[in-house]
């Protein structure tokens, strides 16, 4: 498995849908969505690919069309709307009662309108960070906080990452003590599952105790 940076152009060039579509189970599953965010090249695509039971797919998202009325494009005919690829995958859980979608989304501030649109209805977000460039994660964390989503942070341990204590990462990122911070290798399933478990536990902590009767 490669660790190729997932710049949008690289994603657009590859990962074409291949073969027959994987249809949803006929069990009327509940569909849920978690966001996987972070700076370019941090391993979001790899993370999604490691966990997804279907070959990862990508949608073509036009920045202007995503949440602003599409009219905006026609008013500036000379300008092509910025297109960004969002890749995603899915996991069926609990014998088909649930299908969890993972959306790998760019974490740069300029993607704010797209981010808000993508994150609507999401349960939470996982921020992947590379300890060699921690500051790159701030944009993603800001976007998620503005969207009001609970999040956890996962250090993606690259083969050449120098060891760094999680406490130091927590301090450098100025994380809230309640924000889960875990380590994983985006290529290895068990650690990726653990990261989602840490995130979901945190989501649960933040939900109000029994809401409706």
């Amino acid at each position, binding site marked *: 498995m490669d660790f190729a940076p997932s710049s949008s152009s690289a994603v657009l060039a590859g990962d074409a*849908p291949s073969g027959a579509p994987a249809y949803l189970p006929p069990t009327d599953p509940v569909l849920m969505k978690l966001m996987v965010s972070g700076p370019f090249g941090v391993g979001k695509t790899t993370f999604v690919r490691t966990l997804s039971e279907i070959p990862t797919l990508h949608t073509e998202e036009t920045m202007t069309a995503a949440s602003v009325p599409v009219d905006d494009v026609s008013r500036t005919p000379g300008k092509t709307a910025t297109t960004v690829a969002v890749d995603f995958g899915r996991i069926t859980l609990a014998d088909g009662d649930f299908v*969890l979608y993972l959306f790998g989304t760019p974490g740069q501030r300029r993607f704010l309108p797209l981010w808000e649109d993508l994150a609507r209805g999401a349960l939470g977000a996982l921020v992947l960070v590379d300890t060699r460039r921690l500051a790159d994660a701030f944009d993603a964390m800001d976007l998620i906080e503005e969207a009001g989503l609970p999040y956890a942070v996962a250090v993606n341990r690259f083969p050449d990452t120098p060891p760094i204590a999680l406490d130091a990462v927590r301090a450098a990122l100025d994380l809230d003590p309640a924000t889960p911070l875990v380590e994983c290798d985006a290529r290895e399933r068990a650690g990726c599952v653990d990261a989602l478990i840490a995130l979901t536990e945190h989501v649960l902590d933040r939900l109000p105790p029994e809401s409706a009767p």
Partner: protein
Amino acid sequence: MTTPRRRLVPAYLATHGRTAAAGTHGLDRLSVLHAAADLPAGLGGEHRQLWELVRPGALTLAEAAAHLRLPVSATVFVAADLAERGALSVRAPIPSAQPVNRDLAERLLSGLRALK
């Protein structure tokens, strides 16, 4: 099912030139689409492709968009057209349309734990 080729019609034509987000049935990336009836006469192109794609089984709108290589925004319009004509059934990601609650999150958590 055929693998769609690169689309030949620009996205703005797939939407018949519409630009306002009217009548989109609250469609979302995770709306579940499934063909419900015959394809109405007079609908071709992207409409036919989407309808044929979700005839054998259900897919989310995001998955349909990816398979058709249409932008999500254009797929919303095509799906809304089909739904309006009764050719497509659309359901919300959470069938009972309840907001995320502890029960759902707990079931998700146990489902994730079972993956280990």
